[in-house]
């Protein structure tokens, strides 16, 4: 795998406050990497550093083997799709798309050809003479994409490009972005706070939390083996349930207090007895079972094909569960927490605890 975009130890501070604490990253050619995180985690800053709109405090950015850290944005051969589209309001769709090519001194005929090709690709052929204010939100979004595509850049940057669209359009544009990116094969960085976008669009995800990369992996791996309790809580809806526990002597299980003892299904965790743990279980893994512990339902959220129930365990622990079908028959149910579905995290650091490898 040849790395196309490489970030090495990228730091960014504004005065005393550090926003990014050393990000390392390598994207393969043609890869779509989604940077996801809550607002204020530094994801947009990271994108703007790659674009050259801000300068790094420390570190390097390499694109196709060249160090572009100190280069002007115009000289980086990168195109960006902005959250609010940033179309030039006084220019037609054609001129919006042609502007970058004109500045680069391309011939009229080449500009016309490339703009028309791109417009056809995006279904904008009929709209080339219109001004942005005469377009719908979805059409503006396409023009913003077209403006990036027409330049045939080495790298695409997407800064929450779908967040200004309504829910339905968002789904269809998501699919379209995926299709186009695959087809054009251009390496892409995509920033979003929406976990559905992150899961569906990315070849890999980078989860950012308070300026640090907490996990870099495929979407399924992030979902199935979250690197820490933050990621575990951030990815997945409704969010993962967390319970406090302590490690039992020998590491083979956990003491959940009044809820009883849990025996780890996949092997013992390291650490001294009494180590404080956070146990996580996803709502969809909580099962109804007449032989289980009582669960008092406080809130029912029917979603049609499935239903989310939020309620309490006997000792007052809040818990969410998701079941197929409609609302449950009763206000008090009985549930079981299948041992195999638990994620184990260190309570102090939040880090995932995997079973200790059986020695040799």
């Amino acid at each position, binding site marked *: 795998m040849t790395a196309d975009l490489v970030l090495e130890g990228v730091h960014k501070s504004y005065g005393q406050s550090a926003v990014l604490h050393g990000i390392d990253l390598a994207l393969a050619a043609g890869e779509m990497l989604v940077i996801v995180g809550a607002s204020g985690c530094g994801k947009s800053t990271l994108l703007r550093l790659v674009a050259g709109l801000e300068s790094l405090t420390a570190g390097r950015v390499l694109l196709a083997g060249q160090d572009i850290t100190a280069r002007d944005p*115009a000289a980086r051969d990168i195109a960006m799709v902005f959250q609010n589209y940033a*179309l030039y309001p006084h220019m037609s769709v054609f001129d919006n798309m042609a502007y*970058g090519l004109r500045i680069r001194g391309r011939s009229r005929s080449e500009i016309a050809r490339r703009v028309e090709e791109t417009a056809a690709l995006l279904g904008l052929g009929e709209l080339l003479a219109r001004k942005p204010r005469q377009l719908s939100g979805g059409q503006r979004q396409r023009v913003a994409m077209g403006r990036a595509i027409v330049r045939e850049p080495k790298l695409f940057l997407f800064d929450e490009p779908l967040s200004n669209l309504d829910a339905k359009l968002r789904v269809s544009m998501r699919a379209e972005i995926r299709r186009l990116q695959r087809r054009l094969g251009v390496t892409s960085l995509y920033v979003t706070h929406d976990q559905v976008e992150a899961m569906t669009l990315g070849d890999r995800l980078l989860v950012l939390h308070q300026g640090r990369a907490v996990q870099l992996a495929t979407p399924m791996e992030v979902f199935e083996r979250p690197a820490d309790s933050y990621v575990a809580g951030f990815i997945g809806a409704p969010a993962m349930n967390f319970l406090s526990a302590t490690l039992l002597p020998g590491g083979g299980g956990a003491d959940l207090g009044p809820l009883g003892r849990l025996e780890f299904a996949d092997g013992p965790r390291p650490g001294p007895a009494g180590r404080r743990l956070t146990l996580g279980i996803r709502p969809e893994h909580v099962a109804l079972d007449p032989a289980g512990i009582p669960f008092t339902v406080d809130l029912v959220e029917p979603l049609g094909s499935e239903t989310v129930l939020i309620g309490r365990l006997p000792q007052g622990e809040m818990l969410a569960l998701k079941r197929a079908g409609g609302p449950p028959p009763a206000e008090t149910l009985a549930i079981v927490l299948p041992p195999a579905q638990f994620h184990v995290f260190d309570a102090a650091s939040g880090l995932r605890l995997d079973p200790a490898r059986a020695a040799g």
Partner: protein
Amino acid sequence: MSGCRDWLAHLVLGLGAALFLLPIWLAFCAATLDPAAIDRGELSLVPRLDHLGVFLEVLRHGGPGVGPVWRMLAVSAAMALAIALGKIAISILSAYAVVFFRFPFRRTAFWIIFVTLMLPVEVRIIPTYAVMADLHFIDTFQGLTVPLIASATATLLFRQTFVAIPDELLEAARMDGAGPLRFLWDVVLPVSAANLAALFVILFVYGWNQYLWPLLAATSPRLDTVVIGIVKMIGIDTSTEWNKVMATAVLALVPPVLVVVGLQRWFVKGLTEGEK
């Protein structure tokens, strides 16, 4: 109930409009009357259409104490245009620099300009005259216009417009490869068109209506503006030819009123959005 209120509104607005129009209409009528009849107080609300020649006459030959009115109109127009365009040009450049760059003493520069915001030329008229005399600018067209070009209002207005331009637009342009001057010309100016038009109206009217400074800075009849000319005409107490004075007044009103009414839509939009 709302019908009754509309009726009241029509009454108020109609009365206001009439109060504005009445003096002009009277002036127009007076222009077509005999000066002797005016002196006798025989003003009429009906113009004598066979006497419209008085407008041509003042345009060609002027009146008592002043040269031809076409000449004064030309001086006024040149002065108003020079002031409006000059102010717009220097203000755009300085506002652009202050908003879109960081440079040493940027804040200092801004405050140096900003402090002059409300210091009209009338306040510093005598010392400005002295400085102009030192520069040998008295009785020149530059002297008439340049001191009025320096003021902060336009700079402040443009600064406000520019600050409101979304960051993303600049970012998109930078990624498209636009440099600072290109961005100014291709994006900032077209986007600020309404404010440009509004400011042009304000400054054109400001320039056209100047009185005290031209009175002081240009004594030669060659540089008489039409506003100066009119006051000169009524200054000759004993033999004021009121019909010619009124004809000149009407002519002097036409250009700035046309500018205001013609660009009204932009003017209202740019002015009210800009000041807030």
